[in-house]
């Protein structure tokens, strides 16, 4: 019984981090029709910056928002100096469909190399800001600790803020409109290029939050070729696809579903099958529910 509860708790916590990464992927996909495989690198860079902020301010909770701002700036810069150029140059010819994917992969490599230049190849530690020892009920230890609870609250709060921003503000209207119909939005007076950069910035901030929260929740260490961040990218992508790749709500649900499925596989089947389960789940969703659980029109072929 307690095992069941604990598995569920682990699933929800890690799922909420996947959800943040999924949100980052959905944001860029919606505004540019590009799946940003550099998102892992951007999140990693932001987390390294967050590591520096922790050293300066001695507080994880001050460093978290600062890392998100830094992540937003990095992402905006990437869009301004790189993606705009790419969209202009590589939008024709037989590899037009794969060029953005390849370019974001190249970007990932550049960011990783950049990180090792500055921080070296050794592991850096981000200590858990509060206790990561589970609460106890009677003689049982639950898999929810003050840290995990804080991660859960922080992720849910971020999702809430983003949802409000998108659904209730003029900026959100401009963001959604530019994603669905850039030309009509321009005719309505929306500065689509600027809005797109803003979409990247928001994605950068969400990715930074995912990276900052995942690190103390996971191994607690950072390294330039961190497997953890590759996994974050892959799981974020799978979560986004489960949610239909178009919807923020879908990304959140997708993250939680994926987190739960992986937690149950880990507990009840085998730890070494977790990664391949992600792949199998992705394929099953892509074939059985081509529009994801939230389903937007024509998502798959767009």
């Amino acid at each position: 019984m307690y095992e069941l509860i604990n598995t569920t708790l682990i699933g929800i916590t890690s799922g909420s981090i996947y959800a943040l990464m999924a949100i980052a992927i959905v944001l860029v996909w919606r505004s540019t029709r590009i799946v940003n495989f550099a998102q892992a690198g951007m999140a990693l860079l932001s987390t390294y910056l967050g590591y520096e902020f922790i050293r300066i301010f001695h507080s994880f909770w001050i460093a978290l928002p600062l890392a998100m701002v830094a992540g937003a700036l990095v992402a905006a810069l990437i869009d301004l100096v790189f993606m705009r150029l790419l969209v202009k140059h590589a939008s024709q010819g037989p590899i037009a469909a794969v060029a953005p994917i390849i370019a974001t992969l190249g970007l990932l490599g550049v960011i990783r190399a950049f990180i090792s230049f500055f921080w070296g190849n050794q592991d850096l530690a981000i200590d858990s800001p509060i206790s990561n020892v589970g609460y106890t009920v009677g003689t049982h230890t639950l898999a929810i600790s003050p840290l995990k609870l804080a991660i859960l609250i922080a992720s849910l709060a971020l999702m809430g803020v983003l949802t409000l921003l998108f659904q209730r503000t003029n900026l959100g209207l401009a963001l959604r409109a530019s994603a669905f119909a850039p030309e009509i939005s321009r005719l309505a007076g929306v500065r689509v290029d600027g809005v797109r950069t803003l979409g990247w910035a928001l994605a950068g901030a969400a990715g930074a939050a995912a990276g900052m929260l995942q690190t103390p929740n996971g191994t607690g260490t950072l390294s330039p070729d961190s497997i953890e961040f590759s996994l974050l990218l892959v799981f974020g992508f799978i979560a986004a696809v489960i949610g239909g790749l178009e919807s923020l709500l879908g990304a959140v649900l997708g993250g939680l579903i994926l987190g739960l499925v992986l937690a149950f596989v880990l507990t009840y089947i085998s730890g070494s099958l977790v990664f391949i389960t992600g792949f199998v789940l992705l394929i099953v969703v892509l074939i059985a529910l081509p529009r994801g659980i939230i389903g937007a029109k024509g998502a798959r072929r767009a």
Partner: protein
Amino acid sequence: MRAVHKIKSNSTTRFIFFIALGIVLFLLSNRVDELRVYQGAEIAVYVIAISSLILLTGYSGQISLGHGALVAIGGYAAAVANINFHVPIWLTFFIAVLVSALFGALLGAAAARLSGPYLAGATLALAVGLPSIANQFTVLGGEQGLTFDAGMPPASLGEDFTVYKWNFWIAALATLAILWLLQNILRSRYGRTWRAIRSNDVAAELSGIAIGRSKVLAFALSAGIAGLAGACLAMLVGTVSPSAFPISLSFSLLTGAVLAGVTTLGGVMIGAVVLVAIPEIADAVANRFGGSESVTSNLPGLLVSALLILTVLLVPNGPVEQMRTIRSRKGVASHH
């Protein structure tokens, strides 16, 4: 009639060209030192793996960020066949091709229903997920992996014929065979079908091409070739283990394919040579400018990534295709 004759003579010319290339490689392998021979074998393996990716991406229009996983399957298939079923070494290469192709066909059946970013993400998830399976089944040897010993060269080749040279010979032979095979397939009905789908899948479907089957076939063939690269790689390294097939292998292969020019097989050597040469170039550059340890170890990655970005931005279809386009434009201009 003339056209038919031309095609025929072309294919004969190509055959002779490949034989000549083989002889040149053979002579070359006797002239250079051990390290170069080993690098030559590496290049050969990369050529095989990259051409499998070019076939998939450039000709059938499907992307794979996880070809490293298919290479891994080939390597493991060869090792398992050799260790557990005592299959002779020469036969394990064929088994690697078959097993990978079978797996590729399965993957292709799913892939045929996905477009660009979805397929990219799915193959990436495969590359991340597959290696850890080795820990699940003891027959795959866990983290330690399996040994794969291709054996010593036959004594008849002489005393000073080293293992490196022997491995190079095998890899080079496999490369030539694959390139020759691909050249012919791409010029066949299948090659034309793939190109038609790549440029316009709706039009292709309307002209009666079975898109799904054709894409699955491309995926299976590509996977089989990647599997051969895996067996060759296992032979070079002597072992197969999860850490020998990291995600970065998949990314390197894609980089090689892009540098080679995804749309043509012609540049495949460029991609392979660059991948093998870059660590050495980076080393030389770092030594020259006295860079620190962190610069030296990261320069290769930076160079590869920067090249990737520049290629996509400046010559999206690859250097070879670019030159061809320029030449044909000049040709058109001179007619006016």
